[in-house]
């Protein structure tokens, strides 16, 4: 269900293309010497699409640096005077510091928990004597495609009863449950590619299953774990529906809800709202640009399994 061709994604497309071209036998003279002619019209369309994707972000950045008066005078376009103090004001007024800290706690705990839960489950499903393996796989596939609305209402009442409503831990546990089925399937596919000889050697040395798992398996599926952590952490950072339902206390709000409530109250001061939005987006954009290949790999698989 989720087998995207990741090898074609991760390998730099341009170099593979070059290799392919080099491997091709030389052409007969007179037959279209340039196999891939330049296509100015195609490039133009691609540039227009790129502008559509990033233009609004440029407007967003410009507006975060303007004064409200300048936004109403010239809503789109470069700021005449770069008001960096907007960021400090927005950071203060929207309580972004607390929000970012809460989000960091939630995202990191989600990522760690999902890694632990999913890798253990994937290990049980591929290497241990677990009864009904195919039933487990089916259950996990079903739970990746279940809509959140199906369990949202009773879950709220369960969480109130258990004292987990309006706590960060309660929200983190929900994220563990919602994001680990896909992570399990991803890590399972990693584990299936690892030959059994490694663990047999360790078993002969008398290692127990836990030791085997932490010392032999986890290091071998490390790239998969990083992808899983990145995707789960980012999804938790960006998530809205569960956060808005399960967290009420303003001291506990993740940054997405700080921004949401700031937007509701300051609906007119676009410069400060834009600055606050950029404060929330900046860490994600930086991490994405640094780790984009792993991101795209994880997200394309994650999205397909949703």
């Amino acid at each position, binding site marked *: 269900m989720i087998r995207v061709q990741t090898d074609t994604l991760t390998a730099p497309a341009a170099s593979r293309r070059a290799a392919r071209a080099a491997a091709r036998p030389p052409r007969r003279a007179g037959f279209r010497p340039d196999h891939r002619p330049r296509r100015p019209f195609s490039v133009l369309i691609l540039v227009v699409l790129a502008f559509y994707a990033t233009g*609004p*972000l440029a407007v967003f950045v410009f507006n975060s640096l303007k004064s409200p008066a300048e936004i109403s005078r010239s809503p789109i376009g470069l700021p005449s005077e770069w008001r960096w103090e907007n960021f400090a004001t927005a950071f203060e007024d929207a309580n972004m510091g607390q929000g970012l800290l809460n989000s960091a706690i939630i995202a990191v705990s989600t990522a760690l928990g999902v890694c632990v839960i999913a890798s253990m489950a994937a290990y049980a499903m591929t290497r241990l004597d677990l009864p009904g393996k195919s039933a487990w796989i089916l259950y996990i596939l079903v739970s990746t495609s*279940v809509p959140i609305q199906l369990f949202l209402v009773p879950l709220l009442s369960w969480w109130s009863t258990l004292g987990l409503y309006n706590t960060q831990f309660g929200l983190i546990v929900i994220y563990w449950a919602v994001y680990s089925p896909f992570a399990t399937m991803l890590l399972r596919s990693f584990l299936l590619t690892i030959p059994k000889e490694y663990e047999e050697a360790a078993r002969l040395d008398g290692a127990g299953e836990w030791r085997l798992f932490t010392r032999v398996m986890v290091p071998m599926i490390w790239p998969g774990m990083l992808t899983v952590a990145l995707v789960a952490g980012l999804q938790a950072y*960006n998530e*809205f529906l569960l956060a808005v339902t399960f967290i009420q206390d303003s001291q506990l709000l993740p940054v997405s809800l700080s921004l949401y409530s700031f937007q509701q109250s300051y609906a007119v001061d676009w410069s400060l709202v834009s600055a606050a939005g950029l404060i929330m987006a900046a860490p994600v954009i930086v991490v994405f640009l640094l780790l984009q290949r792993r991101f795209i790999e994880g997200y394309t698989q994650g999205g397909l399994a949703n």
Partner: protein
Amino acid sequence: MTSATARIGAGPAVRRPRRRRRLVAWLFIAPLAIVNLLVIGGPGLSSLLFSFTDWDGLGQANFVGIDNYVELFQSPNVLAAIWHNLLWTLFFLIVPISMALLGAFLLSRLRRGQVLFRTLYFIPYVLATIVSATVWRQILSPDAGIGAALANLGFDGLAGVNFLGDPSLALGSVAFVNNWQWWGFLLVLFLAAMQGVNPALYEAARLDGANAWREFWHITLPGIRPTLMFLVLMTVIWSFLVFDYVYILTQGGPAGSSDVLATVLYRTAFSEQRAGYASAMAMLLSSISAVVVAGYLILRKKLDWDV
């Protein structure tokens, strides 16, 4: 079955290690099983039970038979929301998929700059819904947005247009904003699928003198069919579950003009305190997903598609 025979055959000497191995396996899967049943499995099943009650979310629930389901299909709000979900589905089947197919096809034929373009297209997808909603709320606002900017340049056709506040424009505007974030993700998936198409097919087509359009229609589209079909079906499912953008940008308004099933459900459960009725809506939503997923699996099995 196999365990029983193994036990008889192997005798008591192996019994304990095998039982122990099972126990270890259960311990390894226990964290997943516990959080999953606690958050998804248990509440999901109780949603089914509550959908036959008048539960308010807090107190006693009384059995009311299929009353909630009868009300569901007679409520004008729900029927309007289903209609909006259908329009939403149509929009997302056409606009983002065509944009992504076009972009991915052109990009797959580009010799240089593929990674750069792919990165630019993907950036909106990594942003939080709340961030991209913030970006577009300003651009679509009547006083400080695109309409005002064009009016400054002397073109006042859009001046004062309230994209999110006009009942005839609200739903389309929200879909437009969601598409901005969504289509680049589809493009990346299509691009990955296109790179898996056998290049020899294109060589052969070029020898036959095929133009770009014929290459796209006869080689690319059939080559990425599994991915395309999967995303078409997922688009249908996701279109019925859409919540975030509508809730953040319009809250379903003005006057219910952009309400979708998920926002009606949320209001019914948490503002009107009718959790039993909301559970019936949740069952409707889930059965739509279930039907689409089942249809997909059957198609895949019948036609032997490899996805």
